[in-house]
């Protein structure tokens, strides 16, 4: 479905991605792990065209997306929930969602309000009035009404209280069950273990490990070698 082949991305002169390849298949939830600065965010930004890879190829449903504008890639159904969440602070919660609504999405406004009752309660509040957890929910809800055919999530649980994290895990399960594939960047290994089918580990802009969830769980040395994370 989504195939990234040997992409090289730069910020100015600094060579950040040095040949990253990965695939996400129909219905899968795949994680992209790695230490801070490994290039996870840059990989996601390259997929949606915010950063333009100078080399390599990205295909979605068989067609090349490298060189396309970000909005065109988004219209094809690649939805990124960015690390900074990108909530419009001066817009209400409802407006944040309404500008994203696209006909033909699997999720309607009513659906996401059902999925996130808290957003319905806060629909008239400004984006600047939301807590971190609410912002993350709004960012995901907004991606859902936007008609995603694949969802890219950049550290959705970062900085959130454990209760909220559990709530998000349930939502992600539901999204996965709906058939929309997910590429998840996440530092919280517990969250990854609960959801993932496969894992990729990135280090200094290269994929250094790739395995199924079972393989990854069976080999704790991977964690020790590449991820200085709490398990």
């Amino acid at each position, binding site marked *: 479905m989504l195939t990234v082949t040997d992409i090289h991305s730069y910020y100015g002169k600094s060579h950040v991605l040095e040949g990253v390849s990965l695939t996400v298949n129909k219905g899968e939830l795949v994680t992209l792990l790695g230490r801070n600065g490994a290039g996870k965010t840059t990989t996601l930004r390259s997929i949606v065209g*915010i950063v333009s890879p100078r080399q390599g190829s990205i295909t979605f449903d068989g067609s090349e997306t490298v060189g396309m504008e*970000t*909005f065109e890639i*988004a219209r094809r159904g690649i939805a990124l929930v960015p690390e900074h969440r*990108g909530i419009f602070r001066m817009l209400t919660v409802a407006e944040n969602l309404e*500008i994203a609504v696209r006909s033909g999405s699997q999720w309607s406004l009513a659906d996401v309000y059902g999925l996130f009752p808290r957003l319905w309660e806060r629909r008239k509040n400004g984006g600047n009035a939301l807590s971190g957890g609410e912002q993350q929910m709004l960012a995901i809800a907004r991606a859902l009404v936007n008609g995603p055919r694949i969802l890219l999530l950049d550290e959705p649980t970062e900085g959130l209280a454990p209760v909220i994290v559990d709530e998000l895990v349930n939502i992600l399960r539901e999204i996965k069950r709906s058939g929309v594939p997910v590429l998840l960047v996440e530092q919280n290994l517990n969250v990854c273990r609960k959801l993932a089918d496969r894992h990729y580990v990135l280090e200094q802009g290269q994929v250094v490990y790739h395995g199924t969830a079972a393989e990854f769980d069976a080999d704790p040395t991977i964690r020790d070698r590449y991820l200085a994370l709490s398990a």
Partner: protein
Amino acid sequence: MLNVYLFQVLNGLGLGMIYFLISVGLTIIFGLLNFVNFAHGAFFLLGSYLCYTVVTLTGNFWLSLFVAPLGVALLAWITEQVLIKRAYHLPHTFQILITLGMALIIREASIMIWGPIGKSVPTPAGLDGVFRLGSFAYPEYRLFMIVFAAVIGLLLWFLLERTRFGALVRAGSEDTETVSLLGTNIFKLFSLTFALGVGLAGVAGVLSAPIRGAHPFLGEEVLGIAFVVVVIGGMGSFTGALVGGLLVGLVQSLMTTIWPQGASLMIYGAMAAVIMLRPYGLFGRS
């Protein structure tokens, strides 16, 4: 005596609404595109001249009120496609140089087309009378101008605050990247907003034509005032453009009866005071 002041207050409101229409366009463009448009006054000028031409050819002011702003907006849209959009990523100083050049081209072209001497536009038929209330009399056209500008202001408010297009403009003013991520063609949004903002200056140019006529150097004067208004009201703020515009209009108008020589001084003094007390303007955000 009281009537004199009422007269000047109404004049000030009219002037203020014209300033509002000019500045609100400037401020919306700056808010979304982060682009400084020094050609804004020149487009106002073009609105006045197009009004003159349409009125001369057809004798119909109402037609010019419709056609001239559309013409100005169309020209703005074309300029955006050809030139302006290449300057969004450049520093403001470059944008100022480019649009100042455009302003000069428009001014000189206007002189070539319409001549160096100003043109006057007759007061539209049907509004050339005087409105009377007791002993108070006020030109009908000037009242119409206030009401019409207010209606345009209301429509604009509705567009920005109550429609999807407006929400996208506001969202884009905060974060264009996320707007693109949601599948909106940000380039199209930019061109439409630029044409809209400049078109509003065109409306102002038409409205002011029967009072001030069209004159090649009107553009610079109007641009200066618009920047004062935007600095007072705050860059990117609709309310700021309204309050700032009315404030400057009223001060200018009242000063002409009290102390004519001091009118500009007062306005620039007010601007300096606002900058010192509230650097981002009365309604601006940092």
